[in-house]
């Protein structure tokens, strides 16, 4: 009794490493693998970064027509701060600081929490990007 002939392969063919030369879709597989790996690496990094946390201290910072209240905040080096920026004006403001590397829009009447942490001693200026005459500073000692 003759053995049955091998059936022709139907449907999508999986691309093995050995079959690369016959396999035109390898490039997108490689790209997918690379994306997967970089996503995984980044994910690990982010989990690691999220784990490194310290106690936080809240500091209220109000923005009125005349500027920031208080105009200067003091903090200890390395402290984790939660800046509670309240917009007391009638229009949106943007809390911004090149020194702190932060930028947040605050709608009128709202409070937004901006986190900063691990700062070394120094003077870190901030301003309202939409009304640049309003300025203040965080002094870290």
């Amino acid at each position, binding site marked *: 009794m003759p053995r049955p002939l091998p059936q022709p392969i139907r449907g999508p063919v999986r691309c093995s490493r050995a079959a690369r030369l016959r396999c035109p879709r390898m490039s997108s597989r490689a790209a997918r693998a690379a994306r997967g790996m970089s996503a995984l690496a*980044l994910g690990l990094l982010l989990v690691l970064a999220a784990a490194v946390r310290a106690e936080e201290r809240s500091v209220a910072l109000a923005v009125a027509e005349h500027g920031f209240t208080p105009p200067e905040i003091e903090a200890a080096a390395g402290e984790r701060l939660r800046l509670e920026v309240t917009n007391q004006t009638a229009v949106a403001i943007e809390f911004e600081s090149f020194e702190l590397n932060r930028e947040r829009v605050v709608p009128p009447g709202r409070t*937004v929490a901006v986190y900063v942490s*691990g700062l070394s001693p120094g003077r870190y200026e901030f301003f309202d990007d939409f009304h640049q005459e309003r300025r203040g500073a965080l002094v870290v000692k």
Partner: protein
Amino acid sequence: MIETLLIMWRESLEAALIVGILLTYLARSGERAGMRYVWAGALGAVVAAVAMGVASNGAAARLGPDAQEVLQAGVLLLAVGVLSWMVVWMHRNARQIGGDLRRRADRALATGRLVGLAAIAFAAVFREGVEAVLFLWGVVVQRADASAPALLAAGAAGAALAAATAWLFFRGFAFLNLQTFFRVTGILLLLVAAGLLTAGVNKLIGLGYLSPIEPQVWNTAWLLRDDSVLGALLGALIGYRSRPSLLEVLAFSTYLPAMGWALHRADVAARSASERGPARSAA
């Protein structure tokens, strides 16, 4: 007046530059039909930004500031994914610049890949669009007198100036031959993607979800200030910041080699495919 113009110039610059890259790329690859997708994405983002401005501002605010910031970070990270995929695709195209480019672009259109272009344009415009809407809204509310129209005109002029800046920037690419052009725009887009990723990470740090690990790795403000014209241009395009945190530097510098590897693999695959199939090179 000048301040309004400058703020709107800065807020619109990033969107103009990224939309500019996409349009320039499509124009030079002869794929003018794809431009519709880019414009659709950009216009959709303007509508979404206005809607978000209305939802988060004024008496009937329905969206908390944190939810808005998280949404923006999400749009940024999503755009990085789409952009990465686009760059790999563009790179494969650039290897086959020839008579069959138009056909390949048609094929891309057929597979719906140009939707990716719309997504990038959307993210780029949406990101700064919300801020621009809230800022202009403030201008109108604050000056409910005769000077409001003049200030709005200054804002519009700022946005137009940003478009002109982007146009001039990409005019500079016109002298490149096609092969070089696609290589340069490919590298530029990678840097744009790394910048968007860094911006998304920066938002998550500011929200307190991530630790910066080290808040300031270096300070290059003596070399290039964030608020200088070149600093703003580089900030808009590749996310330049004079004082980045360690986590942002890591995100930027992990992304680039990962993409470099993906592009290298795409190269290897394309080479073996063209060795294998003489039919393709003859087409």
